[in-house]
């Protein structure tokens, strides 16, 4: 049982790390502010979600697991809001470079 849980953790956290890597590459390589934002938020949401999912079996107790989920939800909220605002500035022609 614990072998399966451990493999699950390794697989999910590695997949999360891959999304972070892909997001960082996108942030560096994409041509304009909007597509860079797209890469960044994808990486944050999916990458952190997968890392959180992988760590869930290792949380001690239900409360700690719920806290992990809650942290992910807060990051989702923050990154969605902030990217909206940055995108708005970028569309108005300001340079958030």
């Amino acid at each position: 049982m614990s072998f399966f849980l451990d493999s699950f953790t390794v697989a999910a956290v590695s997949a999360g790390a891959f999304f972070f890597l892909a997001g960082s590459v996108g942030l560096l390589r994409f041509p304009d502010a909007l597509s860079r934002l797209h890469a960044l938020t994808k990486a944050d949401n999916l990458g952190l979600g997968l890392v959180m999912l992988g760590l869930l079996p290792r949380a001690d107790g239900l409360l700690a697991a719920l806290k992990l989920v809650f942290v992910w939800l807060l990051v989702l909220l923050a990154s969605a809001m902030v990217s909206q605002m940055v995108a708005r500035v970028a569309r108005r022609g300001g340079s958030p470079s």
Partner: protein
Amino acid sequence: MVAATLALIHALLLVGIAAWTIAARRTFAAVVGFVAYGLLLSIAWVVLSAIDVALTEAAIGSGLTGVLLIGAAARLRATETAISVERPGPSLRWLAALTSAAVAGAIAIAVLSLPDPAPTLAPAVAQYMSVTGLGNAVTVVLLAYRALDTLLESIVVVFALIGVWSLAPDRVWGGRPGPLHEADPNGILAYLARLLPPIGIIVGLYIFWIGADLPGGKFQGATILAAMWLLVMMAGLTDAPPISRTWLRILLVAGPLVFIAIGFAGALTAGAVLAYPDEYAKLLIKVIEAALMPTLVLTLALLVAGAPERTARR
């Protein structure tokens, strides 16, 4: 082996981003580097099991200071090109670099020349901690053994706020800090400013309350509460209070005054200034922290809001 490699990568990242922050030409880029540096540093504190320091570094060192520096960078943006033309001469820059390197080197020598194991008062703190009834050794040090430092700290932030206020022109003295924030009332910022504060207020109060027994405390909790207030102000849902308001000024000095009063009462009841009678230690420490909390929230938020720029009328 894995842990050592991770620590090495972490240390290299920290030094790298510190160097980049110094080398960055644009003020805004340097501030972004500083915030990232602070967040990496707070992870380093977590690795060292100093959770209290990590929380403070993330909340105040990186978060609040970062916001203050971003505000400063935004104000300087208009004059930045003009200023970057008049760069200091090479001799002055070399002198500054040498002085900074000398200070860093002296600190490094002092830290590296400590005997192993380093002298510590931790066992003494752990031995007598139970007398105060608190469970978090850091809070015991901050409010019992080194209460004087904490008292002066809480006064210094109020002085800093007075310093910011004194930058106001005479005609708006007593007015509202900062520009009037007008955001779309149905926009994304107003939505966030309605959604997040209930969560943030609970988290902030929890971190303040748990500080007696677990990592946390008033400074970290107050920063979160101040951030929530600033969010609501920036979304235009409420306005900063005019700095001439009596309730505001009373709350600003209430924390340090309660601290001083309990401190001097200790001279009569416990035999020394800033000492607590044993059976009431936990209660008195909580009273001091509860009184400091509004002072800190107001001070930290109004430090970010800035000097008065408008008269009390909107």
